[in-house]
Each structure stands twice: as structure tokens, then as C-alpha cells.
């Protein structure tokens, strides 16, 4: 899967990430093609979220070595907003609350930025409400301030709502399953499956195998100490579930994905 296909949406080669001068991702390589779902699993502190944040242009995380290409374009040359408009999306592990800015206004601004024109307000409202209904988000949330006083589950659903509306080519979902009860997890998983087509790719970052019962990955990668130590099919997630990360621990040399 690491062959340089034209259809590679995300192509990472020997990527290292530093945060506050500390290296947290060490020479990681990964290629995600259109139509693929990849699960990236690892313990807290293994570097999963650091990788996600660095790819999206988080101000505290730097891609210090290697290359990261989004559809053939070097992402490090792009600002966070340009990465988004280029088709990259990150669903946050801890979405920001922004008091004073309503969900509806925020999403409208985001769509205008993506589509490059003033969205037709009537059409937009319809689109927004349809997506909210799909994800079983109360329509009242459109008038509420972004993530302000939202429960954990509501925040995660709002992230998926944005995924629906923005239709990115490459979506990174950073622990979107954490903090969800089983009903919310099913709704979110159904949303992810509905979003997924042969044209887009998904990197599902998670601790647990649980969500993989509902969103079936093509590949599962195990990340330890800043690199991928094992790649396989869905069975890898089950191995993990059974034996824990200890099973994969001794592998000190990076296994290329």
C-alpha cells in the first residue's frame, strides 16, 4: 500500500513531529488512498494526536522532518485554513468552545470559505438541518454558541456535522469515539459510514476497538512511541483488544506502513 499511487490522498514519508522541542512522532510513514479507511491505534502519549494536530497545522506542533503530502501537495507549505480548503479535515479530540459564535454562523462562514461564494441562505439552512437530523442533533443547536456548555457526546456529534457539511477528501477523526455512550457511538459511526465514499479517505484515530465494530477499517496500524509498529487488517484491532499493547511493545525498529 505504500506504492506512490496517483490516488494517494495522504502520503507521509518518515514524518517526525516535535512539540515544545520534544520529538513525539519519529519517522512515521503512511499512505492512505481514496476509498480507504485506516485505523490508527495507540495508547495515550503514543503520538497519535500529535500527528493529527501537526498534519492540520496546529501552532504548537511542527513537522520537523520527512514529507507530508495531501494529494501531492506539501502540506507544510499551507496554513491551517488552506489545508482545510485543500480537502483535509480534523475532527478534534477536544473541540474548542467559542462563546458568542453560533453554530449556524460558524458553519455558514466555513461553507463560504470552502465554496468561494455567498451561500444561498435558504439552501444552506436546509442543508444544515438535514445534516443535523441525520446525526440526531436537535435543530436548536444551530442557534447555540459553538460547543459552549455542550456535553462530550454533543461536541463529537458537532464535529461529525462539520464533516458532513464540508465533505473533505481526507478526514482525520481524532478519538471521535471517546466520551460517547453506545447510542451516540452508533449514530456517529453511521454518520462516518454515510460520509465515506470511494473518493475520500479516513484516518480513524482511536484507543479502543469498540468503534471498529461499526466502522470497518481496511487497515489497522498500531502506534507505539511515535511510530507505527504493526500494520494489518481488522484482526490487528482484535489482537490488541485481547493482548493489549504489550504484545507489540518490543518492536523498537519502525515497520514501514
Amino acid at each position, binding site marked *: 500500500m505504500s506504492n506512490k499511487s496517483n490516488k494517494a490522498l495522504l502520503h507521509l514519508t518518515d514524518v517526525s513531529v516535535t512539540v515544545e522541542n520534544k520529538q513525539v512522532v519519529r519517522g512515521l510513514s503512511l499512505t492512505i488512498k481514496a476509498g480507504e479507511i485506516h485505523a490508527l491505534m495507540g495508547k495515550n502519549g503514543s503520538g497519535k494526536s500529535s500527528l493529527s494536530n501537526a498534519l*492540520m*497545522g*496546529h*501552532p504548537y506542533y511542527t513537522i520537523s522532518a520527512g514529507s507530508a503530502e495531501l494529494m501531492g501537495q506539501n502540506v507544510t507549505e499551507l*496554513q*491551517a*485554513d488552506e*489545508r*482545510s*480548503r485543500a480537502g483535509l*479535515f*480534523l475532527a*478534534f479530540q477536544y*473541540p*474548542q468552545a*467559542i*462563546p*458568542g*459564535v453560533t453554530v449556524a*454562523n*460558524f*458553519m455558514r*462562514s*466555513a461553507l463560504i*470559505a*470552502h465554496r468561494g461564494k455567498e451561500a444561498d441562505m435558504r439552501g444552506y439552512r436546509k442543508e444544515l438541518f438535514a445534516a443535523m437530523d441525520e446525526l440526531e442533533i436537535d435543530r436548536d443547536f444551530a442557534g447555540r*454558541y*459553538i460547543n459552549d456548555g455542550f456535553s462530550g457526546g454533543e461536541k463529537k456529534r458537532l464535529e461529525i456535522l*462539520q464533516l458532513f457539511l*464540508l465533505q473533505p477528501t481526507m478526514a482525520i477523526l481524532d478519538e471521535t469515539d471517546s466520551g460517547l455512550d453506545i447510542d451516540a457511538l452508533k449514530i456517529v459511526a453511521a454518520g462516518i459510514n454515510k460520509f465515506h465514499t470511494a473518493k475520500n479517505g479516513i484516518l480513524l484515530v482511536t484507543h479502543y476497538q469498540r468503534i471498529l465494530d461499526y466502522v470497518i477499517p481496511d487497515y489497522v496500524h498500531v502506534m507505539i512511541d511515535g511510530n507505527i509498529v504493526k500494520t494489518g487488517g481488522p484482526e490487528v484491532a482484535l489482537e490488541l483488544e485481547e493482548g493489549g499493547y504489550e504484545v507489540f511493545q518490543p518492536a523498537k525498529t519502525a515497520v514501514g506502513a
Partner: protein
Amino acid sequence: MTTTDQDIPGQLATLPDELTSDPDWLADSRKESRKAYNASDLPIRSVHLWRYTDPALFLHSNGSAPVAESNADIPAYTEALSKFSDGSLSALALDNACRTFEIKIAQAAAKNTPVVMTLRQAAIERPDLVQSHLGSLVGAQFGKFEALNMALWSDGIFIYIPKGAKLAEPIHLLRSGSSGEAWSYGRTLIVADEDSEVTLIDEYFSANAAISGKSNNVVELIGLSRSNIHYFAIQRNNLNSLSFYTQRSVLHDSAKTTTVFATLGAKQHKADVGTVMKGRRTESLQYGLVFGSGKQQFDHHTVHINQGANGYSNLDFKVVLKDKAHSAYTGLIRVDKHVQNCEAYQSNRNLLLTRGARAESIPELEILCDEVICTHGATVGPIDEMQLFYLMNRGIPKNEATKILVRGFVEPTLALMPDSLQGQIRRHVDQRLETL
């Protein structure tokens, strides 16, 4: 050699002839106030409340009388008149440099009809309502420049809301400052009688966008028992003007007030605003919204004085600054001795959009009793980096994302205002953000 008042810069030698027609009690009060002004020293820069602003700026200068321009030429007046015509105001008072007035009161049942007239007329016709309240909160002893106002106010607005009256629509006071070298001194007295409710929009602007003006305005709000006053003061003078503004409310038993101060204009604006919670079970909510750019300088002082048991006060003062604008904020909460079971909260947040902008924040607590819940907090800083990142992550360019966050910062305060005012201030803020 003897010196006379005339010789000393800033002294007020005599009162203008035009003020001599007032009733005796008022003429006497002006004379006393003149003396108080002349006798008091210029506040010392190192002391409380004058650290950030030069008091000499507000000394009286014997210029020619303020010029009132023709009302007919002023778009803001035309707009307000049409708002009145379509029934969305209970009353409208157009105040042109505290010189000429046009007052309109909507037809309503007598019990719901406010008294709105010029203050000098009210002093003659309704001394029963005016004499005991005028200067009771901001009188000659309040401070040097308040004494000056008390001596020289050329006129202003008087409003009385009758007992039990609940006004469905706001009363709008629209005041243009003077143009030119002379100071304009305005004074407003509002008395809300028992069980009444009123919304007041008090808007200050410059009729002439270019000429500098100087204004010293005092507003006193009297909330009698169980009254509820919503007061929205907007200062959007032009950027050459100088503004000195003092406001006090007093709340009697179970009275409530919500006050919002929006400071947008003036080259230099010094304001002292506050509520004296005199009765029991009073509630005072105070909000501030300041937007500064260029070299604007703001100096705000807010006060909550708890004198009665079971009071509740909350203050939320927000400041947005760009370019080289500067804001100083001091906020006092005082709880008097033997005042039990009161709650007092205070927050001041300052958003700095450029490196050159500066803000100071000094919360002050004087708690002289035991049973009280009191909190205060202040922040000064740039746009939240993480919020910015979140918006940019969804494709919104940095500049637009910044504007969204500024609008979001002010939005909860705007949401408290009457609709027409919200739109006006939103447009104003958007315009100021264009050059970000």
C-alpha cells in the same frame, strides 16, 4: 496683588446670564456648585481614578457658547423620527448640544404615559419631582468636574415614569455634542416610580463628523421600589472629541436595573458609572462594551455599592482594542457594614488585536461585612490561539476568523440590547474591523 477667579485658568468666574432664570432653589444650587468647583483642587495624577487621564483636560474654558446645528440636517435625527412615527418608541427626545430640544411622546393611556421634558422646564413645572432628586447622586460634592456640571448644565432631559407604568417601547434620547471649543454641559434626571418599568436608549453622537467637541454629561437614575430600569448608553462621538461622563443609579427596595455602556467614539473618554443599591433585595446588572482603535483613550470606572441586605450585583465589562488604543478600567465593589447576604460579581475582559494596543485592569473590593459572596476577575490578552485554530481548521482564513471571534466576544453583550441598537452597533463594529 489680588487674584480673582477670572485670572486662574479653568476657574469659573461667573455663571452665564442665561442660567439666571432658574427657580431660586436651582439658582442657589448652581452658585454653591460654582464655589465647590473653584474651591476644589485639581485631582492629583498619582491618586485613585486619575492615574490614566490628565484632569486638566476637563477644566472649564471660556469659549463661545456651544453651537447647535440645525436638526433637520442630521440623518440620525431623521432616522429616529421615523422610528418614532412607526410606533417603535414610547418617546423620543432630540437634544442638540444641550441647547435645542425636540420632544415627542407617543399617545398611550395616561397611566402608561411618561413625563418627558427638558430638565430646566421640569425644574419650574415639577419641582416636586426634580428638587429632591437632582444632584442627589452626582452633586457638587461628587468631584470637581461633577460640581462644574452641576453649576453649568445648560439643560438636559427629565423623565418620570409614573407608578405602575410599564412602557412597552423604549424611550430614545439622541444627543449631539457641541462642535467647537466650548464645552457642553448636559444633565439628565430619570425617576422611575414604584412598580414601573422602562427601557431607555441614551445615545451620544457628533452631528458634525469632523469638528472636535467637548462634553461633560451627568445622568442620574432613580429607581423607586420595585421599579425596573433598562438603561443603554451609547457614546459614538467623532474621534476628535473629548468626553467626560458620570452616571449613577440608586435602587430602592426590590428595584432592578440593567445598564449597558457602549463606548465606541471620542478621542478621549472618561467615565464613572455605577449603582448604589440602597434598598433591600435589589438587583443591578452592569455591562460594558468598549471598542477602541487609532489612538483612542478610555478611562472607565464602575461602581457597585451594596447598602441593603440580599442584593445581587453582576458586572461584565468587555474591551476590544486595536492599533494604539488604550483602555484603563477600575471596578469597585463596596459592601457596607451590616449588609448581609449579598452577592457581587465582577469581570473585566480585554481583547487586544494589535501589539500597540494596551489595557489596564484594576478590580477593587471593599467588603466591610461577613456574609457576602463576591468574585472578581480580569483578563488582558490577544485573540485565543486555540479558538483561532479551530475556525481556521474549517477553512476560514485567519483575518475572517479573527473578526468572527471579535464579534463573538461582544455578541453576548449585544444580545441584551434592543434590536435596533444591536444592528447599529454590529454594523459599527464590523466597519471598524474592516481594516484589521
